[in-house]
């Protein structure tokens, strides 16, 4: 039984060990905290790298091959977040809570693990809350900063609201089906009006986590206020887990309601991508901008859900993998620039190329990947999600998404333009970021370039999905 939930156990062990480490490494030894967090995550990832298919607690918990892979991907992403968080936790006002950051992050990750491998609505909801409530603490980590506190408040209030609605939806499903186990629900879900309403309510809860329009309004404020590594974590890990959970639950229990889901997702995808793009164009604060970018990326991820089936699943996992590499690279750069210059507006990036050419290069390639320019990984991941949705005949949605890719190209390139072309007499001065951040950037860069060219990655996901 216990071996079945090995991933969760090792993660919990890592969490507990981090608690111990937090006790041992008091100031001025706090810098070892990052190293221990990174090492623990490495060990955890390595221990669970072989995908397994396990079931436990009488069907309450079910971890398939692909969710096992997804956990590995998310823990790698978390590892990257830890690697780039060190510099922010070096500051005078944050160093005393460095330990907390790692512990809380690990507990949200644990929540996501349970959420992804839930076999019933109960465990799913527990996981979801475990992933949400500590997240609010992460967002307010910089609580002395007014914005951070505001972001945390907005996050937790919205989160409560969406949880409430979602619980309502789930209770309706329970009411009509008489069970919370996914295995038994499938047959009872037939698409009665009440169940449709329940579906939308349920969807809204995950739509909140995924920041899909119209459940996205908290995103810009939260991303802007939260520390850069937390925003990065929110934008990829939390989102990736939610997207994966949504897809696997749809595959598991909504087999009889495909038509409703297709319509629902089509509307939401079109709205999400378009609205996010329109907002993104006007943003000058880079974190806020990345929030809108991540909203539109969530729309693209939903295309894979719309595609459905094994192909949709593999393209979703692939998309998230690629997205993690690109987005975390960008947040690492944003965090670094913020750390050394205190600025997050786009003008701070004018002429960055001259003073910090390597940072500018990583940022450029990551933006290219997000925009989907070949030969970077983002191109392939977009291609696969488009293909999976197209194959199922959703060509109007795909077409609108394609047009939006062009718009997104415009605003992503605005940053590239700022870094390379816009003249600036006093660009941000040259600085050298800590070794961990540089290593994180290097890993992300490798991901951006190699994930696309090594077709084996996608093939692997296809085989496991």
């Amino acid at each position, binding site marked *: 039984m216990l071996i079945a939930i090995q991933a969760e156990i090792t993660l919990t062990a890592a969490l507990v060990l981090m608690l111990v480490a937090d006790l041992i490494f008091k100031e001025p030894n706090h810098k070892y905290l990052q190293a221990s967090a990174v090492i623990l995550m490495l060990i955890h990832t390595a221990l669970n790298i072989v995908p397994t298919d396990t079931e436990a607690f009488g069907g309450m918990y079910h971890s398939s091959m692909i969710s096992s892979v997804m956990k590995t991907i998310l823990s790698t992403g978390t590892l990257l977040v830890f690697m780039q968080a060190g510099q922010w936790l070096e500051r005078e006002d944050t160093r005393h809570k460095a330990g907390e950051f790692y512990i809380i992050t690990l507990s949200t990750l644990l929540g996501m693990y349970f959420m992804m491998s839930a076999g019933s609505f109960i465990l799913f909801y527990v996981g979801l809350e475990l992933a949400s409530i500590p997240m609010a603490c992460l967002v307010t980590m910089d609580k002395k900063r007014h914005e951070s506190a505001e972001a945390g*408040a*907005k996050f937790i*209030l*919205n989160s409560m*609201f*969406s949880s409430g*609605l979602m619980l309502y939806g789930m209770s309706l499903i329970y009411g009509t089906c008489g069970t919370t186990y996914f295995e038994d629900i499938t047959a009872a879900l037939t*698409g009665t*009006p009440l169940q*449709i*309403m329940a*579906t*939308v*309510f349920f*969807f*809204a809860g995950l739509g*909140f986590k995924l920041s899909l*329009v*119209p*459940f996205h*309004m*908290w995103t*810009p*404020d939260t991303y802007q206020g939260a520390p850069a590594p937390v925003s990065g974590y929110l934008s990829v890990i939390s989102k990736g887990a939610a997207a994966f959970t949504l897809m696997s639950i749809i595959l598991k229990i909504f087999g009889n309601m495909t*038509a*409703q889901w297709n*319509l*629902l997702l089509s*509307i*939401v995808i079109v709205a999400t991508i378009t*609205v996010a*793009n*329109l*907002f993104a*164009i*006007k943003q000058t604060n880079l974190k806020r901008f990345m929030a809108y970018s991540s909203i539109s990326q969530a729309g693209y991820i939903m295309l894979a859900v719309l595609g459905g089936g094994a192909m949709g699943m593999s393209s979703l996992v692939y998309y998230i993998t690629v997205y993690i590499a690109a987005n975390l690279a960008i947040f690492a750069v944003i965090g670094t620039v913020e750390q050394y210059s205190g600025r997050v507006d786009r003008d701070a990036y004018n002429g960055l190329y001259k003073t910090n050419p390597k940072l500018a290069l990583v940022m450029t390639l990551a933006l290219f990947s997000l925009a989907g320019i070949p030969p970077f990984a983002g191109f392939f991941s977009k291609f696969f999600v488009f293909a999976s949705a197209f194959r199922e005949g959703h060509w109007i949605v795909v077409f609108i998404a394609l047009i939006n890719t062009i*718009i997104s190209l*415009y605003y992503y390139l605005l940053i590239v333009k700022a870094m390379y072309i816009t003249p600036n007499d006093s660009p941000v001065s040259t600085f050298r970021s800590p070794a961990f951040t540089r290593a994180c950037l290097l890993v992300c860069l490798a991901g951006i370039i190699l994930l696309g060219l090594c*077709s084996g990655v996608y*093939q692997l996901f296809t085989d496991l999905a």
Partner: protein
Amino acid sequence: MEFTILILVLPAICFPLLALFGMKMPHRVAGTIGTVAIGAVTILSYITALNYFGAGRTAEGIFPTLTPWNIRWLPFTETLHIDMGIMLDPISVMMLVVITTVSLMVHIYSFGYMKGEKGFQRYYAFLSLFTFSMLGLVVATNIFQMYIFWELVGVSSYLLIGFYYTKPEAIAASKKAFIVTRFADLGFLIGILLYGYYMQTFTFTPAADQLMKAGMILPWALGLMFVGGAGKSAMFPLHIWLPDAMEGPTPVSALIHAATMVVAGVYLVARMFPLFIGFAPETLHVVAYVGAFTAFYAATVACVQSDIKRVLAFSTISQIGFMMVALGVCTSMDPHEGGLGYMAGMFHLFTHAMFKALLFLGAGCIIHAVHSNEMSTMGGLRKYMPVTHITFLIACLAIAGIWPLSGFFSKDEILAACFAFSPVMGWIMTAIAGMTAFYMFRLYYCIFWGKENTELHKEHVPHESPLTMTVPLMILAAITIVAGWILPFGHFVSSDGKAYDIHIDTGVAAISLVVALFAIGLATYMYARSSQPLADSLARRFSGLHKAAYRRFYLDEIWLFVTKKIIFNCISTPIAWFDRHVIDNFMNMLAAGTQACGTLIRPVQTGKIQTYTIWFFAGIIILTVILLLAL
């Protein structure tokens, strides 16, 4: 044979190593790294060849086709997928030997030739990249991998032609080479897409039912592929880039624009040979006619050029024409009945690579000594540069087809194949072979004999090159001397794969020898002495023809006229106008609209949490209502 992957891996590592860290290394170190890597690759290639040909034949008496590596890279459907791998068959193994041998010689030679040049490390990095791409091209397991490496070869050629990037001519030449070959590659790509679309496979050996599906398309696909091959192999009228490509460093010309890259087109045709013979014999004969005309055209131009590298460039074009003709005149897979040309073409590719590389490297020594490409600065150099002189003479005799040098054997086989196809083709090619002998000896006499430019030589005494440069010459010369009669080439490569004994057709051999000797004699009479009355008077009498030939029959001007005047003015300008005024404005309008929308909806994001929840809830209600109404 799994170790063959190292043949690709070593230069693939070497290139980024030198490109990224080369500038921090001293010249000598960077050059040594490159040379040692390619040396190892050469040894590996030889071992591969020994193992492959030593392993013996299958029951049918042919060498088996091995694929020690094949990774499915991009799968589209069950049968249609792009693979990356290594395929060993007689021609690819032969090409491995040719490429690595010449490449190693060039690497060593460049130590002396490029000594002290700025960008020495960059040069070796590019050489590694080129070697990698070329090796990847010949071992390709499918047509698409070949195409990928084909383009990589084009890129590295572009980089190397433009090596002296401060020289405007070099930049122009590199651009010209890239654009012309890319233009031709468009044909190649379309050919590949047709091939893949109709047959649902990219492999070189499609199954019978896949071939059935292709039907009438196959000849077109193969023809379009040949267009790509014609671009790389400088076939008329796409040859215009090759003479200009001589702006690159001379060792590069030897490696890329004489021995290896330019024969990629020939290799391509040879690779697709079974399909050509089986399904598109007419297309194959078109290849022959294009090759024959190119050979003739280039030979005429070569007779009057005054820049020694240009003469060699046109001679290369002409010789590649010979190879194409050899492949093109084939009518069956049986070397005894109409399939001889395949073996002959491949044989000539092999021998030509050796003696043409030798000629170019020799030319490099000469240019190194007199600091000019022009014949007028030379003359009488035999006194100063004995090694270069002797090796150059050997190469000239080989290309002229004098027994017992290697060129004699391969050329004789080509002529025999041509005569078997049609006597007219045979006689034409014999005449062109005579022209070859003539212009090569004109070149030889003008460099080493003739009237010495004493003023210049007094000022700066020409000297023999250092050992790093002359040793490669001697090695190549040795190969050139013995390759023809030591190597039973037909045993390794033949159209049906079975062992074929090369036998000299005495009639053809006698004719070609007589013609070659006559042409050499004529060249001796006209150019060996210090004054050249006959040549000058001929040039005066046929001044129009001479001038036209000297200007390469205005082919460059015709191309420029077609592109600049016709295409630019009649097609590009209107399109540009349409683009600038209609499309751009439309896009600007769209962009302005998007921006306006962005501004318009901004107030929605109030920052108030109440608004957020209202939208949230309204969203749920609206979605529920839509779902309930719609379904």
